């Protein structure tokens, strides 16, 4: 660890820092934590004794009073990083371009993972993840556009995808507010805070899925906006005092969401987790040592979205099949191996080709049709970047100067 003090100005000046290698490390760590969370949850649901889980609970979860199985640690990191990174990109893309890029980055891998999940659910290989009756054409159709979260009688084939609803809401809001963001960078976060507060006040009844979806989105949006605020402060687009004020408001909105409903939050450690995550991200942003710059970390970082999508079906299918036969330890290793393989397949054969196709399509378009000069100057992998806060070269974002 480097304890060297970095003056605030240097810390926040992108030109002084360039790529944020620390974010790559944070992404990798977050994806490991997410995998751990779901492994621990599976063993817990099956009443298996998992030594790793017990050790983590004893050493980390209990002393810090976090949610069981480190729940929300990984997700809060991803959401925060997403807000941080996407905001930076929003300053050099047109609204349409911005939104399309994010969606193109999300959707192909999502559909690939849903196809795998559908098959596994259909053959009842992952009963802990989704019941067999979820694997119908109608359910698949609604899952493909995340409609399962807002429509009655629909269930998720891939439960982790709920966070994408928060992401997409944030992208839509950011796309719409790009003109405002460029002129008054603090204003979108302030408007969002007002909107979130009003929505939390207005949406109380959860007798149908849609209000619950809305409530879920507005409950977790403050986390993404915290990332936005960090990004704006880092790039010196807003004053530190403004950033602190906006940060406090969004944090309190997150607290309020928890205080006023129990339907969305499963556990009482969300706020503690978020504060720790914010502090760790602020510290981690400045990391740039050998490990952070290593090719391995960057390669892993590029695969975090794929890991996020496939780890649950891959792990659960293997665990369901093998744990009763070969025991916890070996089945865990097999599940992790399956996750690695599935991740690589999804990344290599779905994510990357889709991104390549999209870039090619962008280049072929005649000038002036949504391909402005700003976009054209975006580095090649910038569209890999910023979607879920999961994918990699998010930190690749180039320095901006105040316009």
């Amino acid at each position, binding site marked *: 660890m480097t304890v*060297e*003090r970095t003056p605030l100005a240097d810390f926040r000046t992108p030109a002084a820092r360039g790529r944020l290698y620390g974010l790559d490390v944070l992404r990798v760590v977050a994806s490991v934590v997410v995998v751990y969370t779901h492994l621990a949850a599976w063993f817990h649901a099956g009443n298996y004794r998992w030594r790793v889980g017990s050790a983590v609970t004893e050493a980390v979860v209990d002393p810090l009073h976090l949610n069981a199985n480190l729940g929300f640690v990984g997700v809060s990191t991803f959401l925060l990083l997403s807000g941080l990174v996407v905001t930076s990109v929003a300053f050099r893309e047109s609204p349409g371009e911005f939104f399309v890029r994010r969606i193109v980055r999300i959707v192909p891998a999502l559909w690939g993972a849903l196809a795998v999940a559908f098959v596994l659910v259909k053959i009842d290989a992952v009963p802990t993840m989704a019941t067999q009756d979820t694997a119908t054409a109608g359910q698949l159709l609604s899952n493909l556009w995340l409609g399962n979260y807002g429509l009655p009688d629909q269930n998720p084939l891939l439960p982790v995808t709920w966070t994408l609803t928060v992401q997409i809401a944030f992208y839509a809001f950011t796309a719409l507010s790009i003109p405002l963001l460029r002129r008054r960078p603090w204003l979108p976060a302030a408007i969002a805070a007002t909107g979130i507060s009003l929505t939390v006040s207005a949406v109380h009844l959860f007798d149908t899925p849609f209000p619950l979806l809305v409530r879920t989105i507005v409950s977790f949006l403050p986390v993404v906006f915290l990332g936005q605020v960090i990004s704006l402060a880092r790039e010196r687009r807003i004053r530190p005092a403004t950033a602190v004020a906006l940060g406090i408001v969004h944090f309190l909105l997150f607290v309020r969401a928890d205080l006023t409903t129990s339907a969305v939050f499963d556990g009482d450690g969300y706020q503690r987790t978020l504060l720790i995550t914010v502090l760790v991200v602020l510290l981690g942003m400045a990391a740039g040592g050998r490990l952070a710059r290593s090719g391995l970390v960057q390669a892993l970082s590029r695969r975090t979205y794929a890991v996020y999508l496939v780890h649950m079906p891959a792990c659960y299918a293997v665990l369901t099949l093998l744990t009763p036969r070969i025991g916890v330890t070996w089945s865990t290793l097999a599940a992790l191996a399956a996750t690695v393989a599935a991740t690589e397949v999804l990344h290599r054969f779905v994510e990357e080709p889709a991104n390549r196709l999209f870039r090619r399509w962008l280049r072929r378009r005649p000038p002036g049709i949504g391909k402005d000069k700003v976009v054209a100057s975006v580095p090649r992998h910038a569209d890999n970047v910023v979607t879920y806060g999961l994918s990699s070269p998010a930190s690749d974002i180039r320095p901006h100067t105040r316009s």
Partner: protein
Amino acid sequence: MAGERGELRPALASATTLARATGSCLIVYSYLWGLWPDRHATRFPPVDLVREWVNRPLGIGEDFGMLGVMLLLLASGFSAVSGTAAPREVLGRLVRIYLPLLVVAPVAAGLFRLGADILINPPDGHPGSLAAVRELSLVSQAVPGSVPLVTLGWVIGLELLAGLTGAAIIRLPAAALAVPATQLLAVAGVLLLGGPPPQLALALTLFPMAVLGQLLGCRSRQWLPGWAVAAFGIVVWVLLAGSDRTHPQLHNWWYPLAACYATLFFLLTLRVAGPLSAHPVTSWLASRSRWLLVLVGVVGWTTLGLARHALPFAPAAAVATLVTLLAAEVGHRGATLLTERLPAPRSSVDSSGIPSTDGSLDESNSAHDPSRNQPSALRTDR
């Protein structure tokens, strides 16, 4: 950071200013605005609101008081490995740490004899005739059943210890691994095997925070590699979590969580202290922090009790806070005059890491009140 091995840049050292100032504020708030009304059956809605919206969700008990103490201990440990190991300088540093207690303990004894309402734990306890002696000899916490006169005084003992061991590290940087290791081993031995009395258990549980500060200070002077600091950090964590588990009286206060926040915040202040550290108010609070922390339970507490007879709580607490600040200023200036002849630290950074332009009586300490009976943000019924 260090331009040359072993040198500590003033900029880095002054980064502890923010942590120290924050810690002082948190403790003054905790005792005067949080604990006092609870002890005197008074409600102050804004404090309740903070508990509901901040303390409880974040799991920070005692109205941030112990979080403030941890920040001070981290800053003390960090500062303890700055400066030089010249005997006169070390002596001067230790005197500066001890002086606030030396002054305030007799004042507390006098006030108590006069029947003033000073902060006593437990509230119905009686300090006894030898309390001032115990206080000044720093054994209050170690004597089972003793009632300290300066409830916040035990941190002085920890700071002195950190100052002494810090001097040993400065004297022999090659021992930057051995000294912290020995301290942690000793703490672990007493804490986990010795069955110390509750008050001592608390002090020992928090002492590793000062050791962690030393380790970070050593790292900043390039006396330790990053992996060693990380490894020791894990040991500190194990001690905190282990103590939390083995001492039921500590378990309900969630100290490991507060320690986690304090450490992350401290690391952040080292990185991005920025202009906040240079702000006059921050510097002022930091340089008087030890006085503030010792005085808050004596002068502040008494003043609040008196003012409350004539004023509603909020103005009374504001008056008490101002009087505490004023008393800290008086103490600081008086001590500066007294210690002018003491050797000044070699660099422009004093023993606490605060640029010593104002006399450098900086650090503060406070203490804990394990039996605080407040419906704090963190109750056992969580």
